[in-house]
């Protein structure tokens, strides 16, 4: 354990971005001219809301009375014995709708209401952000349209139905890899076409300024709670390592923000088939400069992951910055390691995790020698109900096909 010494807000490494939306050399606002005024308007609206105690109080009461925060911190005795180091879980799976995504969504839909926008557009990968958005839209009486890749619609059928039950319209994204990247493309096109009437509720710390900043602020509560809960549990100490999975990077940024100014080691875990930081080079897609999986000509590559929520070739710009300055470390795990971790946590602790945070645990299993004797905090960003049918199908199928789970995917469609 390292000593607790977080002096939040003063010259923090995660205080950015600057006035151009940059985290170091990453971030920015690379959007069609049509959207520039909307981004500026959103930035102004968020700045004023975030400075307004009334808005903060309303947000806080939604997080507590509607979403069920604070989420607990669970000390995993069985799993710790099995792996040889102490494991703490930040239980974002216990939030209303089953993942951390609800924090951001309640913030954004509340902001949309304040801006007088009654139609919400969102993209989703695993469907967790889509479900959270549909939930908040139902709560606020807003119209809701969610874009989802066709491949993800097939592998996350439960979440599709949940969204529909909540009154949202789910529209399939049929281009490209038909996963999260393409859902973002479609949502951005829809935003370009309906910018005057619609609010775009982006689901991670990506996209044009102010999204990476705003979404982080809405998720800071994860890190703040985890910091306080850790120090309470560890008699004033902190975990040695904080681990989170990385799709766009919102749950990771949320929990990292509580520890970034301490000596705690920060580890982000990506899928091997969507390792933007590990395999990526700088590039621009979906509104910001960040690390990106791309070919030698700058064409964005298609990610490949068993987890629909991490099946994304980019990463939020603040992670690119944290990697660049060496504050956080990024690792990649394979689908087969993830499935083993999914089963291990279910069996040892009675907690079925989502496949996304199972990536974090998969790395911890791999790194068990390095972690021996330490205290490791994993952000358990979501629960696994949505993934159970998919994992069952994989386990009943050919184990040799593990890393190439196909779900009728084709590359470069419609040639």
């Amino acid at each position, binding site marked *: 354990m390292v000593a607790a010494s977080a002096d939040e807000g003063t010259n923090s490494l995660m205080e950015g971005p600057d006035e151009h939306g940059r985290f170091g050399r990453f971030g920015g606002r690379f959007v069609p*001219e*049509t959207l*520039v005024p*909307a981004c500026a308007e959103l930035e102004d609206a968020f700045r004023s809301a975030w400075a307004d105690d009334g808005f903060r109080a309303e947000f806080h009461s939604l997080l507590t009375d509607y979403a069920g925060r604070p989420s607990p911190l669970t000390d995993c005795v069985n799993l710790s014995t099995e792996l040889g180091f102490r494991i703490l879980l930040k239980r974002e799976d216990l939030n209303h709708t089953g993942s951390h995504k609800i924090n951001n969504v309640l913030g954004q839909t509340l902001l949309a209401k304040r801006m007088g926008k009654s139609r919400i557009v969102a993209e989703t990968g695993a469907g967790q952000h889509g479900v959270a958005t549909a939930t908040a839209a139902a709560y606020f009486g807003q119209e809701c349209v969610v874009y989802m890749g066709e491949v993800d619609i097939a592998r996350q059928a439960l979440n599709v139905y949940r969204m529909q039950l909540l009154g949202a319209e789910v529209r399939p994204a049929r281009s490209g890899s038909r996963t999260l990247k393409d859902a973002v*493309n479609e949502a951005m096109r829809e935003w370009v076409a309906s910018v005057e009437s619609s609010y775009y509720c982006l689901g991670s710390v990506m996209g044009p300024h102010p999204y990476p900043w705003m979404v982080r602020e809405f998720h800071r509560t994860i890190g703040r709670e985890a910091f306080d809960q850790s120090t309470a549990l560890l008699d004033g100490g902190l975990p040695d390592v904080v681990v989170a999975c990385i799709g766009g990077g919102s749950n990771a940024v949320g929990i990292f923000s509580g520890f970034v100014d301490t000596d705690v080691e920060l580890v982000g875990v990506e899928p091997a088939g969507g390792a933007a930081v590990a395999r990526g080079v700088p590039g621009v897609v979906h509104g910001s400069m960040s690390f990106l999986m791309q070919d030698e000509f700058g*064409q*964005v590559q298609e990610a490949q992951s068993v987890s629909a929520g991490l099946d994304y070739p980019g990463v939020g710009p603040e992670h690119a910055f944290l990697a660049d300055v060496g504050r956080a470390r990024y690792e990649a795990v394979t689908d087969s390691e993830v499935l083993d971790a999914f089963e291990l946590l279910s069996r040892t602790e009675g907690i079925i995790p989502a496949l996304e945070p199972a990536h974090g645990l998969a790395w911890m299993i791999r790194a068990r020698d390095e972690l021996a004797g330490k205290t490791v905090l994993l952000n358990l960003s979501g629960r696994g109900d949505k993934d159970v049918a998919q994992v069952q199908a994989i386990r009943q199928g050919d184990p040799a096909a593990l890393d190439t789970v196909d779900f009728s995917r084709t590359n470069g469609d419609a*040639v």
Partner: protein
Amino acid sequence: MTVGTLETALRAKRDEGRKLLVPYVTAGFPVDEWPRLIEGLGAAGADAIEIGLPFSDPVMDGPTIQEASTRALGAGITPVAALEQVAKVDVGVPLVAMTYYNICFKMGHRRFANALLDSGICAAILPDLPLEEVGPWAKAADHVGVETVLLAAPTAPDERLPAIVERARGFVYGVGLVGTTGERSELASTAVEMARRLKAVTDKPVIIGVGVSSPEQAVELVDVADGVVVGSAIIRRLLDGGGIDDAIAFVADLRAALDRAAH
């Protein structure tokens, strides 16, 4: 500031009373025939030709141009191969590259600008590189002598337009509607309004694109605008299987309609 090839050519024609016509094609589509399509459009009366270098994630494009990009990429087109082919075409009008910023960023600003010039292209349109982000590219482009066309959209407040037209080179590309590229049965009311707002703040050629789909719509627009960009209406004819001659004939019809409107 010296005025570039594209702006010089467009101004001269406009000042003679001609209405400007800028057709769009996607490099690599239809496979093998697209260089001849470019030549054909030049002969059919285009005043400049916009050549799209396909990008994997074209967020400003609707289904028609997306489909052309997907097919071109599927057939293996790369920006480098596309520019090599462009270098071989023989057209008497200025060529303008249109692509997304990552293609340019990945190649490097100076290299990309030089590669355009080497292929005979004198200007670039990068629709996801708005005024606030255009600086580093525009500096390299200015230095090499590539004109950076900037877009202006109906959503811009009046105070934003002077800065856009000031930084634009070649022409000012007014976006005709709030939305992505694609054909529309009616000309959006925003199209003429966009032209009017831009003409009020600049003497540079003002050309309106996105949603301009027919000779009638083009004629309606050039009552105020200096010209039109037509893209999806051409690409759709190719997707429908009409062949490049059909697309060229359509552009000839547009030319004839604009010439009648000029008189």
